[in-house]
């Protein structure tokens, strides 16, 4: 399970099945190869040729190792990170030696001890460099920093919502004490969720329950003006997502899409699984001249950043305005998350 809860002393090994990690390894190693080519060559014209030669060596090894590490990811993450690092460097070196011998067998390389030692040192150094890069990167997103960012997001619940909700509850106490009780309980749940530790992934079902609670409270204030359509298709019940990913988006949708209109408005939320991806679409009516720009972009950036912390390049968030089928302007937010079975 990808998590950003890390022990600062020894950041865990990267998730070798994460597309972003693979891409970083591919690019990083090739950059090193390019640098090596530049060092070896006399002029810039020669560099390209050298790099092509090197790449022909590096690429098969790189792909082989990526496949091996992806296969061993769960084993590697279970053992101590320091031992894991040694294992990764060791496997790289062994695979480099095996590959060299394979080339020799095919007649592409003359083999011999000096060449063997050179390959061992180069492969080991490259693997070490990449691991060092990943641990630096993990440290850069270290708990303190990540937590500060997550806390900043937590504070994003609008004071506007809090005070309006309290006001609505106060109005109920005399006429409908039972409903007032329920609403206060729901508010308490909401704030408990908001003040929780935000670093771990939570089941999607919990996030949806939280959103429903939030919408219940808003419904009290806005009455029939707020209409929400949920569509949940084939979503694994135990799928885990970053906490408070959806609620701020719904809050935005209510603030910018429902409140500025005196009429009924509909927010549509759709979850659908598409192979290994979970697609979440959120649509709300859109009003010209509403003050959406600033606050909204901040919330979107916050969520985008948290998705990056949890999933690297494998998750994305897009937002755009669109004219719907009935000619009305709609604001759409689309989130795509990796959706693996959660046994890992």
């Amino acid at each position: 399970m990808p998590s950003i809860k890390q022990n600062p002393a020894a950041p865990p090994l990267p998730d070798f099945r994460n597309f972003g990690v693979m891409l970083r390894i591919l690019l990083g190693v090739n950059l090193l190869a390019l640098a090596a080519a530049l060092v070896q060559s006399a002029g810039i014209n020669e560099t390209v040729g050298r790099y092509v030669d090197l790449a022909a060596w590096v690429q098969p090894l790189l792909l082989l190792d990526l496949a091996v590490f992806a296969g061993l990811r769960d084993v590697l993450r279970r053992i101590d990170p320091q031992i894991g690092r040694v294992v990764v460097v060791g496997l790289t070196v062994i695979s480099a030696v095996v590959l060299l011998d394979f080339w020799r067998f095919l007649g592409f390389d003359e083999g011999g001890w000096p060449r063997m030692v050179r390959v061992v040192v180069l492969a080991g150094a490259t693997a070490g460099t990449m691991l060092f890069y990943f641990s630096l990167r993990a440290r850069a997103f270290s708990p303190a920093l990540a937590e500060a960012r997550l806390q900043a997001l937590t504070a994003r619940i609008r004071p506007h919502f809090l005070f309006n909700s309290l006001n609505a509850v106060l109005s109920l106490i005399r006429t409908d004490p039972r409903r007032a009780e329920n609403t206060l309980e729901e508010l308490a749940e909401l704030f408990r969720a908001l003040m929780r530790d935000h670093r771990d992934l939570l089941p999607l079902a919990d996030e949806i329950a939280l959103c429903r609670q939030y919408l219940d409270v808003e419904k009290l204030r806005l009455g029939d003006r707020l209409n929400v359509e949920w569509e949940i298709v084939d979503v694994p019940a135990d799928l885990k997502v970053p906490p408070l990913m959806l609620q701020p988006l719904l809050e935005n949708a209510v603030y910018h899409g429902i409140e500025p209109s005196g009429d009924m408005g509909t927010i549509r939320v759709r979850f659908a699984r598409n192979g290994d991806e979970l697609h979440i679409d959120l649509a709300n009516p859109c009003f010209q001249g509403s003050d959406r720009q600033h606050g909204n972009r901040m919330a979107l950036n916050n969520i985008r950043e948290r998705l990056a912390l949890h999933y690297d390049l494998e998750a994305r968030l897009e937002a755009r305005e669109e004219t719907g089928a009935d000619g009305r302007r709609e604001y759409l937010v689309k989130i795509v998350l990796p959706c693996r079975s959660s046994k890992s």
Partner: protein
Amino acid sequence: MMAGPTLSVLIVDDEAPARARLRDLLADIAAEVPNAVVGEAADGLLAVRALEAHPVDVALIDIRMPRMDGIELARHLGRLEHPPAIVFVTAYDGYAVQAFELNAVDYLVKPVRAQRLAAALQKVRHSRPVSPEVLAGLQQGARSHLSCHERGRLLLIPVPDILYLRADLKYVTARTANREFLLDESLTHLEEEFSERFIRLHRSVLAAKDAIVGFEKNAAEDAETQWQALLRNVPEKLPVSRRQWPLVKSYAKRLSS
């Protein structure tokens, strides 16, 4: 006890629970500040209608409302024959609260407390209304409506309906697809406030950008206005001055491209 004559009150808020809460509180403080809620309105337009039918002493106005915000409503109400005293109510709006403090405009924060409400109502009896200039300063962005008097009524004209604005000797005329309205405004101020919506064609004419459908040469040998703008839904052709023509032309080009 400072009980004076009964204050009549109108509550303007788009959220029903918020209106109910104010109603409860007003009933609670009735002994201290005699008052009677004579109406409730869910938005600015309904509030104007309600006040025309029944003038009141005090209007409690929520700031963030759909269609027309509370500040704009207060500006329009200022033009009524018997304008009510206004107490603004807001849940949370950092900007508005700061501006109120700066201009010493009285306001209440939600959830409103009975004592604060009583104090605000007491004060309202004696204080002078907030000046139109201060209200204009509090407004964020452009108004959604313009207002004018006609035979004792306050008419609200939705800005998107206005095709053009034309200054005559004393008044500004606003033209919609159906009719004209006489406004007590200055064309320069309107141009500033609605610069996104209107473009100046002539010293005395602003036209809605989205209403312009084309231009044609003026057949008459008139020195000042060689070109005329054609607007949708109205037969009139509006003069484009020589000075404004380059700007208007470049705008039209951007439009057609």
